[in-house]
């Protein structure tokens, strides 16, 4: 008869040894994770910290062979020069109008469309989703000439509205794709309950789905805002007069041929250009995090 091995209960010493090894392993793994995270954060922060440092350095420190993190003789001259040479405030105002408008319009359009895409499964919805993904692969230069001609016929060249229209169209596919994911995370049972209570499609969307989608809508709006805020090529091509130009276009005025740059003022202006995005993130990051995890648990 074959003897069945009996699992022996570990002694207290063995258990404690095992536990301590496990703890050690866990602690080592966690330390490794934290170190990796720290390295990643440093990697992400480096350009921004360097930008700030450069913005406050006088010209002579910019040419130093041994650059320092903290400027030895910090100065505001770069900011003064940047404001003196280029209409930064006006450009920031234009960028703000374009980016906020584009974000709002994109969200208003994308929300019902995303709902339709997420809830109505069928060949059309599948094709639409596929098209949305494919459309993201088009390079700007491919679409800019037909787009330019259409806007010209609409008399929207050199207008912020023309630019906003382009930004909305450009950010819609990704906004749709993003929002559709959030819609799928909203339990369909809630809508069925609303229907039982007599709510129609629109009422269900506005009163039941939209509030639950709020974090997703905010995240999508933020995405559209940042896309529009940073966009350069469309703004360069579509806006002709200096008073209409947006911040990314004005920033390139600090660049010469073959990549020569007026580094100090460029860094100062670029630092100012990143502030709105940072402030916006600071205010709504909790909502975004909430939104991103909203669909994580299956109901």
């Amino acid at each position, binding site marked *: 008869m074959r003897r069945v091995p009996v699992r022996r209960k570990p002694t207290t010493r063995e258990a404690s040894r095992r536990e301590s090894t496990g703890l050690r392993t866990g602690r080592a793994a966690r330390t490794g994770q934290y170190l990796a995270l720290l390295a990643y954060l440093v990697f992400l922060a480096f350009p921004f910290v360097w930008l700030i440092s450069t913005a406050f350095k006088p010209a002579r420190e910019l040419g130093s062979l041994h650059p320092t993190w903290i400027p030895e003789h910090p100065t505001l001259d770069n900011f003064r020069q940047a404001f003196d040479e280029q209409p930064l405030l006006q450009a920031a105002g234009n960028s703000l109008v374009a980016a906020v408008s584009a974000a709002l319009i994109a969200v208003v359009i994308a929300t019902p469309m995303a709902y339709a895409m997420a809830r109505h499964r069928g060949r059309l919805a599948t094709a639409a989703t596929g098209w949305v993904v494919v459309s993201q692969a088009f390079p700007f230069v491919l679409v800019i000439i037909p787009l330019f001609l259409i806007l010209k016929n609409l008399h929207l060249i050199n207008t912020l509205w023309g630019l906003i229209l382009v930004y909305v169209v450009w950010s819609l596919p990704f906004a749709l794709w993003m929002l559709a994911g959030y819609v799928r995370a909203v339990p369909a049972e809630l809508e069925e309950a609303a229907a039982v209570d007599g709510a129609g499609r629109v009422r269900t969307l506005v009163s039941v789905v939209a509030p639950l989608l709020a974090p997703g809508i905010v995240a999508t709006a933020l995405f559209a805002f940042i896309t529009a805020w940073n966009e350069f090529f469309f703004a360069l091509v579509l806006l002709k007069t200096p008073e209409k130009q947006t911040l990314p276009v004005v920033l390139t005025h600090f660049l010469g041929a073959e990549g*020569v740059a007026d580094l100090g003022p460029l860094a100062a202006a670029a630092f100012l250009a990143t502030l709105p995005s940072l402030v916006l993130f600071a205010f709504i990051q909790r909502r975004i995090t909430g939104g991103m995890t909203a669909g994580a648990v299956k109901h």
Partner: protein
Amino acid sequence: MRATVRRAAAAVAVLALLLTGCSGGDDGRDADGTIRLRFQSLAWQKESVDANKQLVKEWNVAHPDVQVEYVQGSWDSVHDQLLTSFEGGEAPDIIHDASDDLADFAYGGYLADLRPLLPERLKADIPEQSWRTTTFGEGVHGVPFLQEPRVLIANTKLLKASGARIPTPERPWSWEEFRQVTKELTGKGRYGIAWPLKEPVSVTLNLGLSGGGQLFHRDGEGKALLRFEPGDGVVAGTIHDQVNTDNSAARSALGMGGSDALPGFFGGKYAMLPLGFSYRQQIIQQAPEGFEWTVLPMPAGAGGAVQGVSPQTLSVAQESPYKKEAVAFIDFLLRPANMVRLARGDWMLPTGTEALADPSLRGTRNGWAVGTALAEGLRPAPAQSVRGYPEWKDKVATPAYQEFYSGAIDTGELSKRLVEDGSRVLARYQR
């Protein structure tokens, strides 16, 4: 439901037709008859922007019936921006660009042929070799007005300490002498030279003229041909040997732009830097207190003290209804005194002979005199009018030169790639 979809589709189609049908009829003239011209400038340094704006202002005061609007352009993406504007019929009337960017626009029919419009004074003032930089086919499609030679910026103390002969525009170093001097300037923790060759092709081809190289030739029918002759290997070979044999040139600088190499120059890591003439402004701004530097001519070889340049240009859009007025404005902008103002603003050399003679551009301070003395030897960049050159440059020549300078391939392989692979590229454009 289907009916709704059909109705919506029909509405969209009608709207699209309406939109594409209602194009504007703006002829650039106000109700009172005032002509309005748009001048897109790529000036970017403060002094240069100020000079341009001031000149526009002066023109507008003197010409109430032809008003010019200054539009700030950007060197970044200027080609795509102009192409879109031309295709969309919204190009500026007066266009600032560089001559090596004009070929596609000129051959594409977007730029006006200026020959019948240019005043005699301007034609005579700018030398023939400069006009060749903007001549494409039969037409002249731009006015070259600013140019910059490549010069050697040297650390004065190190150069004097080395005991090397100081070259002058009249008696520049030969390429062999230059190689010897860079060896002598090399010491512990210091290289005789750093070649910032982020864009290796234009530097090599432009300086290659001085070594007797040309690379691009024309056959009897005017077709561009590639031939790698001994002269084509002089400059490229010198750089290769400095990096890989003598260790007198910093290998790490090969991937840098000119600005990136400046800190090493100021810190004494490199004794000399070959840079565009306009870099002097950055050096003045960034050099540490007490740092002494000087401007030297680039070496010369069998080809003489010559080098290729792609001047900055002013063109007129073919679609502009007021070409005569646009050229009149260009003529005003490029009067000798005004050309001097523009040149000083950009720290470059004017193409006009009268402006070039201006005493303010001939002082020894900051190397102006060396630059103006080099002007006579400036020639059109070897390949700028060759169709297909941008593709050859990006796909064939840039990687080939990069590998050659880093020591990965030898001269035989370099010439094979430049000529054999390059000819296949050019053939597509010259059928």
